[in-house]
């Protein structure tokens, strides 16, 4: 009866947890069971349980559709480019801030760099849309000044990834640098003093002390980022793309939104949801597995 006694003792704390558990059951676990509709032909009047089973029909339809490959490629490519350009950016910013000797200035730069993180995606994408407008956007006015004809950036599929990745860096680089700046403060200052006595240059100190000092943080964050590589914000793509750029911009989640939710093919959309969820899970689990191994090794 020890279990019962414990339950009784912790009664109040379990009660405090109850609303949160209910939240997770309703908004997270019920949708997981709702996945069954991807194996059914969902009909509104019949509901989830009464609708007919169709097996893997929706999955097969998706993989045979001409858009499937393009969607998967776009999802991975946007994730990949965000990673290779977006990952080093905060490290570089942190190193530059770290080299700054004027503490007041450093604080000002730092505070400014976080600001975009708090701006909504709607506002960031609206700004991008307006600044890049071919008729009265400031970027095209500037290009006109240099004698370049206006470019309809938002209508060009070839520009989509660049816009997506660069606005992403603009918004998150400062926020991302916080963790590295924190890691930098843990480096023993005696190392720098010793290097100074040996006559090491600033570049050498950065290369041999600073970067190795934050390497564990870099490795861990890189692993986490790779795990979430296809976890691309639906909102931002939705807000930036349009039919003219679907070719490079359309990703699994935006396709689910259009063909599944808006057009009402709930079962078909859910099948693609499940597919992308499983791929995401495989990535996270694999990468966490690797992280654990790296974690063990780094003990040496």
């Amino acid at each position, binding site marked *: 009866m020890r279990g019962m006694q414990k339950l009784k003792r*912790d009664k109040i704390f379990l009660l405090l947890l109850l609303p949160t558990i209910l939240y997770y059951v309703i908004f997270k676990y019920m*949708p997981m069971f709702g996945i069954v509709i991807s194996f059914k032909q969902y009909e509104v009047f019949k509901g989830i349980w009464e609708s007919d089973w169709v097996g893997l029909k929706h999955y097969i339809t998706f993989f045979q559709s001409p858009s499937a490959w393009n969607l998967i490629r776009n999802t991975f490519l946007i994730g990949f480019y965000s990673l290779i350009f977006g990952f080093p950016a905060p490290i570089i910013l942190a190193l530059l801030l770290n080299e700054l000797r004027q503490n007041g200035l450093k604080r000002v730069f730092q505070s400014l760099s976080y600001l975009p993180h708090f701006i909504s995606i709607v*506002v960031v994408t609206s700004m991008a849309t*307006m600044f890049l407008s071919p008729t009265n956007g400031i970027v095209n006015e500037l290009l006109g000044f240099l004698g370049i004809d206006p470019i309809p950036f938002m209508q060009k599929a070839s520009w989509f990834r660049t816009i997506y990745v660069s606005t992403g860096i603009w918004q998150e680089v400062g926020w991302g640098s916080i963790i590295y700046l924190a890691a930098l403060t843990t480096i023993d200052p005696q190392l720098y003093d010793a290097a100074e006595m040996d006559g090491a240059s600033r570049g050498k100190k950065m290369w041999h002390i600073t970067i190795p000092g934050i390497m564990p943080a870099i490795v861990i964050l890189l692993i986490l980022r790779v795990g979430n590589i296809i976890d691309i914000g639906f909102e931002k793509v939705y807000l930036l793309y349009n039919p003219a750029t679907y070719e490079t911009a359309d990703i699994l989640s935006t396709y689910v939104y259009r063909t599944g939710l808006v057009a009402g093919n709930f079962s078909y959309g859910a099948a693609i949801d499940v597919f992308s969820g499983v791929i995401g899970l495989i990535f*996270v689990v694999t990468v966490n597995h690797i992280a654990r191994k790296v974690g063990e090794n780094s003990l040496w």
Partner: protein
Amino acid sequence: MVKRLQPFDVFNILLLLLFSATVLYPFIYMISVSLSSSAYIMRGEVTLLPKGFTTHVYETIFNSSRIVTGYKNTIMYVVFGTTISLVLTTMAAYSLARKTLVMRKQITFFIIFTMLFNGGMIPTFLVVRSIGLLDTIWAMVLPTAISAWNLFVMRTFFQGMPVELEESGNMDGLGDIGVLTRIILPLSKPVLATIGLFYGVAIWNNFFSALLYLRDSELFPLQVVIRQLVMMGIITTEGQNSDEMEVDQAVKFATIIIGTLPIIMTYPFLQKYFVKGVLIGSVKG
């Protein structure tokens, strides 16, 4: 010790100044255009400071019922949603911070698992619809009520509090709830402020829930109104003339500015608390 400014320092400062400019300039530019008169905007003469200062577009905006409704809705969602989120998160985090809690491991895993896998957009939509949240204020509050990340940041904070606090509370005859409300919470103001601000900003910026769960334009939050304005343009006002397009641009910028202003105004507070929040979160519990 005085250090001489080396070429690298100059280069570094210039680079960081340039970076700061790319952060600040878009906002300065938008504010200036929104405060300039249309003739100057049309000729593309506004670059840094407003020219032909006028607050005309702001008057237009505050006379637009769509924007005013959006603003009111967003404020309502933020106040209501942040309260609910913060109360639930605090209760859960405090309980999970107890090392002796029965089934602590299982409950933690139950929450962490949802960070790794979820049902996806459509099954979630169907659940939200089936419990009747579509086109209600709850749609903006409940589906995103608890963030596992915030929950674990708070739990880590509570775990860092000395056990003696609770023991002394108990000796003074306080029950478990009394210890929480009389002793723990007053000492937790910084973390409550941090998490409250995180939730508040997230709700202020939330576009996704509105896109999926709201059809009734009377319930639209500001973000949806901004989006509609920028995409489709023009607050329908009578008597628009030839410089419609340029005024239109000013109106859009002004809308973006008023939609962002509360974030920028609370930024000093955000600043003060959020770095702490991030750093608490990065320490394993």
